[in-house]
């Protein structure tokens, strides 16, 4: 381990991507993630990499599509309204099975909304914001250190399964500075990408990267193949942190920065004799359903705390499957719940 550095979340994303071997970045400015682009604009020319400020988010994601089809490790980053524009390209990336990484430093919507932290793009990321039956791997770091580790991991997952991996953060995570320790060397998944378009060199048949299959039988088979891949990812790539859940009176579930608030609430509650557990999904897709099944009958109730009107709570309900009541507490518009608010909600649920 090298020395600890104090770095901004957004800069850590860029640094992590570079350490993961990414040499191609395409993006368009939008608050609150633009520091990723600033960092890349400085770093890429020095290492013979590519930084392109695209004319739009639409163009940026299609540049990503091209670079991924050409066999490169490639990154784009944006924030909610920009990610809406990228949905077309995301669907094509899924259809053509290309590996790529996208960061969404979420801000509040709908529309132009606001720039403060939010988790209102859970549905868009996890359920598929574009057209077609597809999935993206969605990773939700809750600290700057984890932002680094998961960004590196995202490139490996993407290459391994030929899939888009989304790092889902929020303005708080992107803008904050925290200590980060980089490894001396990253574990990088090696793949020869024989399918990529690199020029045949007259040594092989030509490669095509496409998402169009006009024949229904062929397209159904293509879809079945995708679904089989998604199942494999569900089996192998689910990530979750469980804390204090054994004998918990109530299990709170939260992801990203909100989970940090909940950890403080757990300490406050302990002083009042309330045992609060936490299930923190790190991969939002695949969702850690098994972890919820495991603890489904442990607490009196579940509570999902989110910076949204209630999105992840739907997956929590599916996972708990009616065995216990699942409650929700959320704030919107960039408002962040205080520890006291969450504790009050817990007490209300437990009638304390």
């Amino acid at each position: 381990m090298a020395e600890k550095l104090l770095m901004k979340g957004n800069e850590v994303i860029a640094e992590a991507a570079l350490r993961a071997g990414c040499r191609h970045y395409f993006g368009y400015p939008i608050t609150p993630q633009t520091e990723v682009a600033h960092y890349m604009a400085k770093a890429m020319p020095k290492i013979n990499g590519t930084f392109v400020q695209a004319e739009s988010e639409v163009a940026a994601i299609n540049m990503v599509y091209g670079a991924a089809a050409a066999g490169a490790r490639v990154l784009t980053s944006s924030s909610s309204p920009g990610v809406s524009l990228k949905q077309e390209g995301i669907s094509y990336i899924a259809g053509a099975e290309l590996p790529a990484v996208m960061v969404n430093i979420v801000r509040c919507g709908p529309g132009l909304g606001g720039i403060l932290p939010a988790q209102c793009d859970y549905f868009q990321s996890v359920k598929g914001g574009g057209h077609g039956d597809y999935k993206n791997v969605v990773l939700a770091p809750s600290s700057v250190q984890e932002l680094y580790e998961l960004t590196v991991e995202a490139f490996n997952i993407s290459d391994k399964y030929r899939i888009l991996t989304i790092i889902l953060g929020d303005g708080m995570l992107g803008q904050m500075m925290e200590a980060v320790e980089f490894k001396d060397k990253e574990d990088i998944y090696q793949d020869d990408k024989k399918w990529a378009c690199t020029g045949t060199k007259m040594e092989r048949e030509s490669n095509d990267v496409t998402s169009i299959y006009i024949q229904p039988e062929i397209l159904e088979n293509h879809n079945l193949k995708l679904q089989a891949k998604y199942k494999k990812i569900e089996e192998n790539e689910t990530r979750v942190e469980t804390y204090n859940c054994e004998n918990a009176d109530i299990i709170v579930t939260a992801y990203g920065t909100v989970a940090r608030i909940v950890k403080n609430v757990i300490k406050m509650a302990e002083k009042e004799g309330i045992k609060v557990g936490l299930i923190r999904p790190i991969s939002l897709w695949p969702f850690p359903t098994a972890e919820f099944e495991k603890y489904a009958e442990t607490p009196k109730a579940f509570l999902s705390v989110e910076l949204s009107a209630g999105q992840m709570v739907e997956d929590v309900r599916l996972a708990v499957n009616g065995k216990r009541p699942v409650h929700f507490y959320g704030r919107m518009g960039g408002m962040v719940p205080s520890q006291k608010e969450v504790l009050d909600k817990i007490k209300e649920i437990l009638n304390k």
Partner: protein
Amino acid sequence: MATVFKKPHALKDLSLHYCPGCTHGIIHRIIAEVIDELEIEGTTIGVSPVGCAYNNYEYFHVDMVQAAHGRAPAVATGIKRVHPDNYVFTYQGDGDLAAIGTAEIIHAATRGEKITTVFVNNAIYGMTSGQMAPTTLMNQVTTTSPFGRKPEIHGFPIKVCELLSQLEGAVYVERTSVHDVKNIRNTKEAIKKAFKVQQANKGFSIVEVLSTCPTNWGLNPIDSLKWLESNMLPFYPLGNFKGKDLEV
């Protein structure tokens, strides 16, 4: 016996799916001949559009990427930035390039991306069955301009070469046609030069090829060629708009 005519190597031995009399096939053949003559088959990567030529990646013996509608120049940008020593071309129709993909083509051109665009302009949407294109002529009847294109309702056609030639990053801009042998030859020369511009790392190159759509124009193949000549040429003048004397 001496071979006097054969299929270019860069073109696969498949029958094309285009309608009878459609000139896409001629343009495909020209591209393949150019790739053969420049001996760049092993280093060329193409980008297919959305439109009638959506699956032309099946026809070329080169690596190809199928792009979303209008996004081929952005996709080609991504490819070229990863493989700067390869030849990268996009093949796009008028709806793809001049309507839904206007931003992408203008910005790829102004960035001076070292790619070549073959822009097939037949003044109509083919694949979706005959709607008005951004290049549809005044008074031309289409399924979405059933009483003819009127300026007060539909506005005016876009002249792509004239537009792009204003951009510094676009270094070679030429409009050609494939309605007769002489013009087919000119088209080949232009596309060859456009690829050489890439070879010389000079900037963005585009050849707009005036083409026919007998099916959606409601004309037979011969009359389509005549229609192109008498209606399209007066509005879309042929010739070089930029880079005529460019050393490549």
